């Protein structure tokens, strides 16, 4: 079945037939994934220990990182002081870097290609991450201005024939770790580990905002990018999430947990359930089912804290296309 059958008729699928959902679950029958939820309470909580515990629960040990280049991709969507719901918190980035460095990573990089502000250092400074990177001596790579290499669009959900990706991601990084926020998104429903990878696409080639990707379909682009990048891990900053008019203008929504996993659709589906949003209602999650991973509850093994303990309803607004 081609992409339009999954993504195009959102309305039909949302109201959806039980038969269709049943078919999708069959399509992902070969997929299984583990997702870890760990309670940290606040950004002053046990972030490093929780990440270590999560990695252990996911079967990831020192040799995953030892001697390797680890690229951490936070979500730095907007320069703003004092709004902890917008960008990945610096303490989460610091904790992830600390864990991988302690495991003997050859290097840990932080890389971002934010879509709404060309001055990366302005975004870094206002988010508080710049100070942390300086203090911890962690290199930052501006993916918006990185050299671009082109790879075939192997999934082909959008009409793009090829994708321009940053050379740092393709040639330098051995492991790609998505470090998103738990947020609603006014165009595509939610923004989590998969949508966060929009930010690896270089602005020098796709613009600010990345309208080329918007025009071929945000959901389709998310799927194509994830298939091309093949991220290794995601650690979702769900300590303070965002509800309402995300990904920028929404309001804080404390949840107090980190969510981790190696299969991004599965992690994002669990995050959606934390937000009391049905992942089958999110077009790109639905499209990822059976292609990039599982999103059905029965195909995801929850580790750590149960979803039900921390789940709370996130208010949202949604329009299924648009610019900006």
């Amino acid at each position, binding site marked *: 079945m081609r992409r339009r059958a999954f993504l195009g008729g959102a309305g039909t699928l949302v109201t959806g037939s039980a038969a269709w959902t049943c078919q999708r679950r069959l399509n992902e029958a070969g997929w299984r994934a583990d997702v870890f939820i760990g309670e940290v309470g606040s950004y002053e909580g046990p972030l490093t220990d929780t990440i270590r515990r999560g990695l252990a629960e996911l079967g990831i040990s020192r040799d995953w990182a030892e001697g390797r280049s680890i690229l951490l991709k936070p979500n730095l969507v*907007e*320069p*703003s002081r004092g709004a902890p719901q917008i960008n990945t918190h610096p303490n989460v980035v610091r904790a992830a870097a600390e864990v991988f460095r302690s495991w003997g990573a050859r290097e840990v990089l932080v890389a971002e290609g934010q879509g*709404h*502000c*060309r*001055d*990366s*250092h*302005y975004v*870094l*400074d206002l988010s508080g991450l710049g100070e942390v990177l300086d203090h911890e001596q962690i290199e930052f*790579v*501006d993916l918006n*201005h*990185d*050299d*671009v290499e082109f790879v075939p669009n192997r999934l082909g959900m959008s009409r793009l024939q090829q994708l321009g990706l940053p*050379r*740092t991601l393709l*040639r*330098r990084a051995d492991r790609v770790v998505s470090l998103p926020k738990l947020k609603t998104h*006014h165009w595509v429903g939610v923004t989590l580990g998969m949508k966060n990878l929009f930010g690896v696409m270089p*602005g*020098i*080639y*796709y*613009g*600010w*905002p990345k*309208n*080329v990707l918007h*025009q071929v379909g945000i959901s389709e682009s998310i799927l194509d990018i994830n298939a091309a990048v093949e991220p290794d891990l995601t650690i979702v900053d769900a300590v303070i999430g965002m509800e309402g*008019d995300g990904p*920028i*203008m929404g309001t804080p929504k404390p949840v107090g947990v980190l969510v981790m996993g190696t299969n991004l659709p599965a992690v994002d589906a669990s995050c959606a359930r934390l937000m009391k949003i049905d992942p089958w209602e999110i077009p790109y999650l639905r499209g990822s089912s059976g292609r990039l991973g599982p999103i059905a509850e029965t195909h995801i093994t929850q580790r750590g804290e149960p979803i039900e303990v921390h789940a709370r309803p996130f208010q949202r*607004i949604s*329009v299924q*296309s*648009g*610019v*900006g």
Partner: protein
Amino acid sequence: MGSSPAVEPTVLAWMALTSLKGKIPNGPEQNLGAGSPFASFGDDWLLARQQPDGSFGVSQSLASPGWATPYAILYGRRVDRFRQARQRAVDWLLSQKGKPIPKGRGERAVIGHNTTLIGWPWIEETHSWLEPTALAILALVAEAKGNDPRVVEGFQLIEDRALPAGGWNYGNTIVFGQPLRPQPGPTGLALLALSASLFATPRPMVERGVAYLHQALPRLLAANSLGWGILGLRAWNAIPDERAIDSWLAGAYKRTSGRADAAAGLALLLLAADPDGLAWFRLNGRPRPEHVEGVGKGGNQGRQSVPAGASDVQPR
């Protein structure tokens, strides 16, 4: 790992170093200027970036998109060898149009700006945004195209994208009923472009932009944003205190130097530090506008659409 040379930082660095020539005794920039080997090499490199359609590719490794073309035009005004290249680049730039979003589509209900105005996009066949429109205007006005209908509409777009409380961002004003936040870099660039207008610019809009920069720049250490911001203030003769500017620039320089991606930022700091830096973005012989005071938040709310007249800022 680094990245290959790109037009934007190269041109900005070249502008900054050329402006410095003769101002620092025995400085390395003494070797610059027409006829020097360094200049010739730089000119050759930049000319090699021009594509058959007249645009300039953004970098040595990317022949497209062509959004850096205005930089090449602005730089090329001072180099005789660029005469033909400039003309082809201007023709290409005038052929580029942002993609409007027709009224009546779903997006228009939630997007606050006028999506039908034709400005300039970052990437061909996409929507228009603030920064590429401002850069295109600066280049075209410098090429004496200030009366071209495309440029006039470009000014309208910049005015339309002004944020209600003052300043500009990348080009979204209100989305789902919520006003978005200003950013100093686009605000400086917008003010710089508006100062090039041959027509009147609503004074309250300029004052609110200046006021935003007066409030935002003193705390800013990010070089690109600070550089564009100061250039925007200089364009409206709205520098609060040159000694304060020196302090801001010093802080940003300290924060920026040594970074692998520092070239564009340091160049902008140099251009901002040098009162002559503004000349790169202006039509030759154009005087600076009258002094503009910033206004505090809450003052002069609401965009005024006024014809050229006494209440407007006349930057000529």
